[in-house]
């Protein structure tokens, strides 16, 4: 009989959801919007920054450099010109965000003088300049290294070697001999990827955004589920029947978990489809961690709604927990980078453990052996919340 009651609660919630199409749509879209906003807004890579290149010399190194610059997604090379002043003016006019000025002696490998590459950056666009400067620095460091190697080789090897290398560059051959110049490009690409590619912020962000979305929807959803029903008198109908508090709480948990698991799956699929997120660890473990997180936050919601009479009271009580939890639990920045007091607080909130476990599984490919402490802590939190929720539940209507 109790199973029947619990199933009714699930059935009722699903039916209500189905009958409120805007609510259903928002429930399905919310995770996708969250992941999109955070992904593109905060974690996405910058690309196609318009730049101009000033080329004042000719030769293989210049050609290779220009190719490397063109091949980088970060830049959108609007023009290659020869007048530095004109380039500077273009930056000042806002036509481009940066101008890379190659010096006149750029292609002269035998010139003992240092080759000064100058970048004019539109520093009023903080985001673009922050991205352009280190990326350009990295690019020319790499080129500089390659030129250094070339110089060493020139001192120790035959002259025809240079010719072969030049030819190889010109034909973009894949032979070992052409590695020098090809490497310039490849290595540059590697370097750039490391800064903005492999170590993408979105990768760091997605596991925690998944956990955070589950947290928000569980915590806020429980307000409607218990406090809302209490306020509208619907809970009274259940309590008029021979039904225990544990059955009502159980039904609410199961109903919420089913819905939240569905949302978690949508979130993961959205993350994979929209951002090409790769889950290095087990997909099943990822889902289970989200479900455990959902259970924990549903428990928190039940604990709060156990005593409150209205949905508004519930929201007022949940907000002071939910918002700080989002910021201290390392969703956006690693906990280690936060002030010490926040670091301590972080370990008192369950979202920190969900984030840690999700990142371990999704980014590092960790298994259950790597996240068991997180799981244990979450189970502890869940038990505490449910214990308090059920014992403190105010059955009085």
């Amino acid at each position, binding site marked *: *009989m109790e199973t*029947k*009651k619990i199933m*009714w609660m699930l059935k*009722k919630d699903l*039916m*209500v959801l189905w*009958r*409120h199409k805007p609510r259903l749509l928002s429930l399905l879209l919310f995770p996708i919007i969250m992941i999109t906003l955070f992904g593109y807004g905060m974690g996405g890579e910058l690309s196609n920054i318009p730049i101009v290149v000033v080329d004042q010399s000719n030769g293989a190194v210049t050609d290779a450099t220009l190719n490397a610059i063109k091949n980088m997604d970060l830049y959108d090379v609007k023009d290659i010109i020869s007048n530095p002043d004109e380039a500077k003016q273009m930056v000042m006019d806002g036509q481009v965000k940066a101008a890379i000025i190659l010096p006149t002696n750029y292609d002269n490998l035998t010139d003992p003088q240092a080759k000064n590459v100058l970048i004019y950056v539109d520093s009023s666009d903080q985001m673009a300049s922050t991205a352009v400067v280190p990326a350009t620095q990295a690019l020319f460091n790499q080129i500089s290294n390659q030129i250094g190697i070339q110089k060493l080789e020139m001192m120790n090897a035959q002259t025809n070697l240079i010719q072969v290398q030049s030819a190889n560059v010109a034909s973009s051959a894949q032979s070992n001999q052409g590695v020098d110049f090809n490497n310039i490009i490849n290595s540059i690409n590697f370097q750039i990827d490391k800064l903005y590619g492999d170590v993408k912020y979105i990768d760091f962000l997605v596991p925690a955004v998944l956990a955070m979305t589950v947290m928000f929807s569980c915590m806020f959803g429980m307000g409607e589920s218990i406090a809302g029903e209490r306020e*509208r*008198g*619907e809970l*009274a*109908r*259940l*309590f*008029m*029947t*021979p*039904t*225990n508090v544990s059955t009502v709480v159980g039904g609410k948990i199961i109903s919420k978990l089913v819905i939240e698991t569905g949302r978690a799956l949508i979130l993961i699929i959205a993350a994979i489809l929209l951002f090409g997120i790769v889950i290095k660890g087990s997909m099943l473990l990822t889902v289970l961690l989200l479900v455990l997180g959902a259970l924990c936050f549903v428990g928190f919601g039940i604990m709060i709604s156990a005593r409150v009479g209205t949905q508004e009271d519930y929201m007022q009580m949940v907000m002071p927990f939910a918002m700080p939890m989002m910021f201290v639990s390392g969703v956006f920045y690693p906990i280690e980078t936060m002030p010490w007091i926040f670091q301590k607080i972080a370990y008192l909130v369950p979202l920190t453990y969900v984030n840690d476990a999700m990142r371990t599984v999704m980014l590092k490919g960790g298994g259950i052996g790597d996240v068991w402490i997180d799981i244990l802590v979450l189970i502890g939190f869940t038990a505490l919340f449910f214990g308090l929720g059920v014992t403190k539940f105010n*059955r*009085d*209507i």
Partner: protein
Amino acid sequence: MKYAIETFDLTKKYKDFLAVDALNMKIEDKSVFGFLGPNGAGKTTTIKMLTCLIQPTAGTGKVAGYDIIKDPNAVRQKIGMVPQLVSLYGDLTVRENAELCADYYGLPRDLKEERIVELMELVDIKYAENKLVKQLSGGQKQKVSIVASLVHQPDILFLDEPTIGLDPTTKRILWDLIEELNSKGHTIVLCSHDMYEVELLCENVGIINTGTLAAFDTPQGLKDTIMEEERSQKNTRITEIMSKIRTESGMDEKALGELDNAIIDIEKEEGDFRELSVMINNLDQDLLEKISDIPLVFNVHQHKSGRLTMDISCTECAINDVLNFIIENGGNITSLSTKDPSLEDVFMKVTAKKQAEGD
């Protein structure tokens, strides 16, 4: 089982506020009981305790033979409740709400279907069975609430102001339904502010005021008690005045004896009055004077509308005599009404008395 409900010092306290104060009350099985009281008197709190929706602070009660504290689920199985605030899922249909309740009461599937259809037909809501509850009118919602509360065939049905805000026709339908349910053996506890409704339906009435039971009787018994009390108060006052005159006025015994007899005569003559109101469409000055001269009639007053009101002595055939007199003198009566002491008068007196005691 003689009593459907018994309470033993049932008490509910909210912090410093004593909502129900050691209430002791017995409600007969298979009766319709009217539970009255001013706003905030403790009616709904008492009902909530008896329906196991809230826990008493002290004392206890027995409902359908089960203790409300020790065996609340057995009580819940035996009772149905139509609350003041409709407690139904607005986003479910009429039928779904009824099915949900049937499953919560553990009804077998075949019985459930049969019972729901039967009840929906009884309260005449079957035509809207697939409508969402939130789309229904107030009266329709009350009907669904009744279906949801009766689906498990409870012995006792609590109705907390069920006709509030309903139109007269829907009210009448609900009253008929209450009578029908009672005739089928359900005990009905009706909480209401509508005195007419209570007088019409209830065999017994309890008036609660400031958390205690201020009066408990049949509606007629309560009215008689009030009239008796009024009479006795008047007598006490006369006795007090006479005693004062005896001691302070210095009148001789003969004069005092005559005064006593005069007072007795006036009492006999005035007795108790009831108000009679008649509409005579051919009333003229002559007839009006003749009516005013009838010995049984006092305080004749003609309203602008032409309607006559008069106080007449409460003798057995006073109304008959007055009406015969008017007809014999050519009066053509088109409407008439009498004003008897009502349950509302009782209610006002009981609650006012309690208030005065409290002050």
